């Protein structure tokens, strides 16, 4: 994303800001922008904007934040939250913004989005994660078909990447947990 001429803030968008607060369970106004999250974030050096700018955009309620790559690539390591002087769980804020962005059809990092989608799909289908199909799906998402074969093939032969994973017995009831009451309520909106 590019901040710049298009990012004009005339007034705060309260609705988006409130939605971020609601979904994340945080209050973005708690942040006083000291930058400690950015300073400690392992992934920030590789992103478009750093975490404290995500928070600043969230404080404006700017829809610009939905276009950020950073929100998708937060690895949820909790370094920021651990050291934040104001106890803001920045990972949860990023997570909430991706959920809103997804709803709006804005996915700045389709690969990161694919990871979580494919992961949950795998869990929903089997009750457990099947690593090989997941890794293969991610190969497709990244279009990096041949990379990592040097690692994958030996692991396959060590029996560490079985073709067919375990499926839990109580799969039917398990799958019902994916339609929680709250999730249903969200859908109604």
């Amino acid at each position, binding site marked *: 994303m590019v901040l710049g001429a298009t990012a004009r803030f005339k007034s705060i968008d309260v609705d988006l800001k409130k939605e971020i607060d609601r979904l994340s369970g945080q209050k973005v106004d708690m942040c006083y922008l*000291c*930058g*400690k999250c950015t300073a*400690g*974030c392992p992934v920030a*050096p590789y992103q478009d904007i*750093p975490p404290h700018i995500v928070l600043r955009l969230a404080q404006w309620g700017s829809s610009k934040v939905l276009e950020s790559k950073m929100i998708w690539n937060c690895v949820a390591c909790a370094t920021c939250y651990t*050291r934040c*002087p104001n*106890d803001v769980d920045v990972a949860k804020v990023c997570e909430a913004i991706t959920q809103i962005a997804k709803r709006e059809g804005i996915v700045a990092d389709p690969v990161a989005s694919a990871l979580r989608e494919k992961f949950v799909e795998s869990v929903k289908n089997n009750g457990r994660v099947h690593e090989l199909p997941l890794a293969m799906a991610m190969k497709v998402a990244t279009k990096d078909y041949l990379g990592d074969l040097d690692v994958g093939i030996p692991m396959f032969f060590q029996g560490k990447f079985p073709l067919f994973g375990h499926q839990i017995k109580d799969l039917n009831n398990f799958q019902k947990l994916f339609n929680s009451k709250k999730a249903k309520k969200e859908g109604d909106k």
Partner: protein
Amino acid sequence: MSRVGVFICHCGANIAGKVDVAKVSDDAINIPGVVYSSHQKYSCSEAGQKVIIDAIKENHIDKVVIGSCSPKMHENTFRKTIEQAGLNPYMLEIANLREHVSWVTADKDSATRKAFDLVKAAVGKVSFAKPLTPGQVTVEKRALVIGGGIAGIQAALDIANMGYEVVMVEKEPSIGGRMAQLDKTFPTLDCSACILSPRMVDVAQHPNIRLLTYSEVENVNGYVGNFNVTIRKKAKFVDESICTGCLECVTKCPLKKKIPNEFENGKAPRGAIYVPFAQAVPKVPVIDKEHCQWLLSPDPDTIEVAEGEKKPKRKCGVCQKKCEQGAINFEMEDELINEKFGAIVLATGFNLFDQKKYGEYGAGEIPDVITGLDFERMVNSSGPTEGKIVRPSNGEKPKKVAFIQCVGSRDEAKGVPYCSRICCMYTAKQAILVREKLPDAEVYVFYMDIRAAGKGYEEFVLRAQREYGANYVRGRVSRIYEQDGHLVLKAADTILGMPLEMEADMVILATGSIAREDSVALANTIGITTDAYGFISEVHPKLKPVEVPREGVFACGAALSPRDIPDTVATAGAVAAKVGVLFSNDILMSDPMVANIDPMICVACGACVEVCPYSAITMEEFRGKKFAKVNEAMCQGCGTCSAACRPGAAQLRGQTDEQILKSIEAVLQW
């Protein structure tokens, strides 16, 4: 039957904005006993008071209820008002319609209902009020100053110069406090010791000041004008009247390089017998009984040995042998001194935040990560490195020095949400000192915001940046770790909006100020309160900034909240003025709202004697009947005895059981 007048105050829109004052006033006239009711825009104004005085006279009112702000604000004002109308000033009850209602209730209807309830309760209570007369007490015109830092020194000198006697109690072996530990002071860069030590000497030589170092206040009784204070004078094991301050003992102590010197923030050693620093006042050493080998070894007299065997001797005793004056006295014991004072000044100062609580900055385990106070000692020519700025890990000059501000300030997660006020400035000063002493070293200051609100302060910070070339980077550092012989800072430049990783040779943490660890205990001893962080609470942050809730006790300096030297000295002067005002009275009026025990009802169970926090109650006997008696001068009117008394003999004047029950009844009935 009483004739009660009710006056409801709008307090502008403060009360009237939430409470329907007209309705409360109209309804109040129907309360039994009420003969008059009205409402005014500002009851405390001259016009408002006139309405009250006229109404009392015209309607033959004998008891008054005022629905207004907190009695803390204007009870005294209105007592004087009704006195002018010819009533006893205690025939008054305040219903707190502002702090207890309009400011804390969102809904207008319920606010109005609650306001009326409080008015009813006040009417019920005041109907049974009895006229009270204050007593008279004399004033002991001597002041006790607790704490011998710059705050205490200033207050003591000012009070003493007014001609009053002062006793200064300092718990360390020397006065001087934090300021004595500093090298230079901002924003003028004058040498701290050079401006402080003349005043320390003034204290020692002032004919009106008696200095008790190595001493602590143990107990405070009494009341304004008449405090009884117990002071523990800890045994120094050195006779101050003989010691010449030659310090031969100090240089000969075998432990002289073994014990961390508190004055050097633990970064240089002292012996078991020591003076904390060269300019100490008094320049008399003390023996630290936690470490002295002679004092720690067993007393031969208490050891039993078989016949013919030699008794073991005490260890060491070198200082005693070396002292030509014979000033060392190992038999010395703590001394308890009782003194009477008319006023008490708290000048107990502050502590610095413990860097151990910052695990992300190495929790004090990384040698080259030091605190601002460590740096003050390091850069001072009488400090552990004789003023040389070096890396503690290897003694080499640092080429790159980083400062981190707000360590233990503005960090709610670490329990210190407040700003410490001094760190921005002392960091700028230290950055200047590094650049002055090591012109080749790079200096970086990681800050969040620069708070330089003071005379010449902003200019000083700009000088650090522009003249001295300190590089300011906006962003809180996330972590410091050691790698390959240097430090790595995981930092950010929030203005550029990017993370950055920086190597440095030395990091100085600007640790914030916190309350002294014993501040709450001291507050309890004196019977006053502290805020959530342990700083002493003032009566009013704006209008009574050096007064504390116990009359006759005052506080100044960083014991109240973080502050710098100019503000500390200013509040110390303010305290001295307040003490002067108090001492300008020969006689004070005492509060008549104190406890009273009816000897006819008292069964002499002694419960009140047990619970009284001020030791104001004693058991008496008259013609064979035992009963409890209140010393009204000592009673603070807390009401604890009244609550503990089962037969109901102990009653607090102005808050009798009857009054309280009637006020409850009033709320429930009418």
